[in-house]
């Protein structure tokens, strides 16, 4: 049963990924991306990462893809991409490079393994490791707010900076020209 779910979700994930690359209309690409993101959420559920399932659906499938679709609709770029290629042999070369990359990664999977001791029995364990550690959410939260508190605060600063930067960059260029002219006149 779990293999059935795995292969179903794997087929959906690969179909969605191929759809992102092969479909001509950017709006269709964004919808294919949702299929892949939800399939990855299913894998997270299978691997026991309950909090990440919710975050994957809310942040990725919810916020990020809606942002993509919003920009596609706003700019009206949902027309088809031209098929002729300015660079000759770009697609065959990309295909060959992709196959080489895949071969490299699979070679690494077969011949190397992540080093590091299992954390069973410590406070970092995903399951087991003493009573009172709580479920998946409690364990992630404990790690996040103790070991990773400083990166967590930096991430908060990063998000604020990203919001400010997005507002500054997306501002109409006419407004900045006007303020420059006003500054020169005064």
């Amino acid at each position, binding site marked *: 049963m779990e293999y059935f779910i795995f292969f179903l979700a794997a087929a959906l994930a690969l179909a969605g990924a191929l759809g992102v690359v092969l479909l001509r209309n950017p709006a269709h690409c964004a919808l294919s991306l949702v299929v892949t993101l939800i399939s990855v959420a299913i894998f997270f559920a299978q*691997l*026991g990462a309950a909090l990440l399932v919710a975050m994957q659906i809310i942040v990725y499938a919810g916020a990020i893809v809606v942002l993509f679709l919003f920009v596609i609709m706003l700019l009206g770029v949902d027309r088809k991409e031209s098929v002729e290629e300015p660079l000759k042999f770009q697609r065959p070369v990309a295909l060959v490079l992709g196959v080489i990359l895949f071969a490299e*990664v699979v070679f690494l999977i077969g011949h190397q393994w992540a080093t590091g001791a299992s954390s069973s029995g410590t406070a970092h364990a995903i399951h087991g490791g003493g009573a009172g550690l709580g479920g998946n959410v409690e364990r992630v939260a404990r790690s996040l707010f103790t070991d990773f508190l400083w990166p967590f605060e930096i991430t908060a600063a990063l998000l604020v900076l990203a919001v400010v*930067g997005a507002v500054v960059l997306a501002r109409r260029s006419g407004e900045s020209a006007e303020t420059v002219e006003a500054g020169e006149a005064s």
Partner: protein
Amino acid sequence: MPVLATTIDAGWYLVLAALIFTIGAAGLLTRRNVLVMFMCVELMLNAVNLTFVTFARELNDIRGQVIVFFILAVAAAEVAVGLAIIVAIFRRRRGATADDLDLLKDPTA
């Protein structure tokens, strides 16, 4: 406690993540629309997230899942800034493909 703890071998997840990563990389090299190239980057990030969670299960270490939390936050920030840049480019150059960004190219060449 895992919600649906499986006994599926980690190798399956790793090969699948490698496949998604490769598709994303090949798409980044072939597509011209900047928005679709961005989506291919998201595909590659997701493949890496899947690898992180797989190794978190293999090593029984919750910190692999915490890293994915940070990758999600950074991806959200990256998309916000990147799409703002695309909107700004589109306002000036009336096009959102990588071929439109040839400002440095010598027009007489």
